[in-house]
């Protein structure tokens, strides 16, 4: 019974369904679309947690800091593999790293475009690749500091520090972007990363 309920509740029950909608299967009121699979969500929140732990709680010199860093590196590696063979919205082909598309998206937004992207929007896609690359750089420089060859070399440490600063900036921008796009597209994006479903408001064009 729940299936019938979800479709009509909130509107006056028993009112005739909008004519045309059921036959064509076209725009239904506030559709929910499954987008993020459990692996994507698990990796996303694990990565967020490991970034939080290593930036705020672990001692930089500690073994724990190292291992949390390796886990973060591993998470990115698994996500990259999933980007090749995973579900459709998780694959790289769904969100290619294209500055041209991102720019086009910015201009479209300035003109009041409110369309919904089922995967990452073109700007969000750039941020995703940026964060992965930054985490990879942090992991690489972090590992280098533990090796005999690079131990105590100042430039490695400086690079690690710079990457960390860039990551913090990126995370802040990422969170701001999520809230901005939630407002712009009307899709609660944080919720989508929790239960995997994007709730697309009525009558929004979907890309």
């Amino acid at each position, binding site marked *: *019974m*729940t*299936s*019938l*309920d979800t*479709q*009509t509740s909130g509107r*006056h*029950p*028993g*009112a*005739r*369904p909008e004519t045309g909608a*059921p*036959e064509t*299967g076209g725009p239904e009121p506030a559709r929910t679309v*499954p987008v993020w*699979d*459990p*692996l994507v*969500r*698990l*990796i996303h929140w*694990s990565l967020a947690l490991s970034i939080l732990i290593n930036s705020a709680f672990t001692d930089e010199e500690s073994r724990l800091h190292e291992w949390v860093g*390796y*886990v973060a*590196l*591993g*998470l990115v*590696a*698994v996500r990259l*593999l*999933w980007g090749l*063979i*995973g*579900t459709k919205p998780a694959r790289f082909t769904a969100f290619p790293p294209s500055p041209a598309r991102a720019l086009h998206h910015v201009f479209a937004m300035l003109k009041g475009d409110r369309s919904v992207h089922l995967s990452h929007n073109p700007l969000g896609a750039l941020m995703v690749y940026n964060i992965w690359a930054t985490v990879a750089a942090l992991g690489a420089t972090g590992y280098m500091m533990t090796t005999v060859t690079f131990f105590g070399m100042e430039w490695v440490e400086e690079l690690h520090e710079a990457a960390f600063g860039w990551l913090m900036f990126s995370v802040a921008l990422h969170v701001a972007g999520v809230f901005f796009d939630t407002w712009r597209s009307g899709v609660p994006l944080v919720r989508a990363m929790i239960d995997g479903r994007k709730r697309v408001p009525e009558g929004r064009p979907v890309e």
Partner: protein
Amino acid sequence: MFSRLMPVLTQERRAATLAVIILFQALCALFFIGDVIVDLQGGDGLVELHLAIEACVALGLVAGVVFLMVELRILIQRVASMETGLRAARGEMAQLVDHFFDQWGLTPSERDVALMILKGIENDAIAEMRGTAPGTVRAQCAKIYAKAQVDGRSQLLSVFLEELFAQGMEQFEKAAA
């Protein structure tokens, strides 16, 4: 039709479990790969057998991860197509309900009440939701049953159930022919 909701839920739980195992196993695989690389840099003759075994373990884990990832993708696709089927069934049901209400010539308020009856809402609750007296709802129910030529709640429901089964049989026969 409604019991088909259950598999979707259990399938989703399976997908989530699979995702946890994939991630855990992938991290294990990466640990072994990293260990092999570090050991290789050491370059000790004695540990060559140990190294080979570790490499095999890593390979096995990676193969497992890739296989499970493909399985997970298939599982998620299946859940998605099941949901589409459910939505279609739901859409058809709404059409069917509409069609019958038209045929019976129900007034707008009777349609509201009839739909609530189909959803299994009690008369008192209907009255409360519609802000009318329970007596009004009872009268509306009586009119609905009369127009539909049924004896009561359960018979009204069975009109739609019957239609659902009949349609299913038709499709089955069409497929068989």
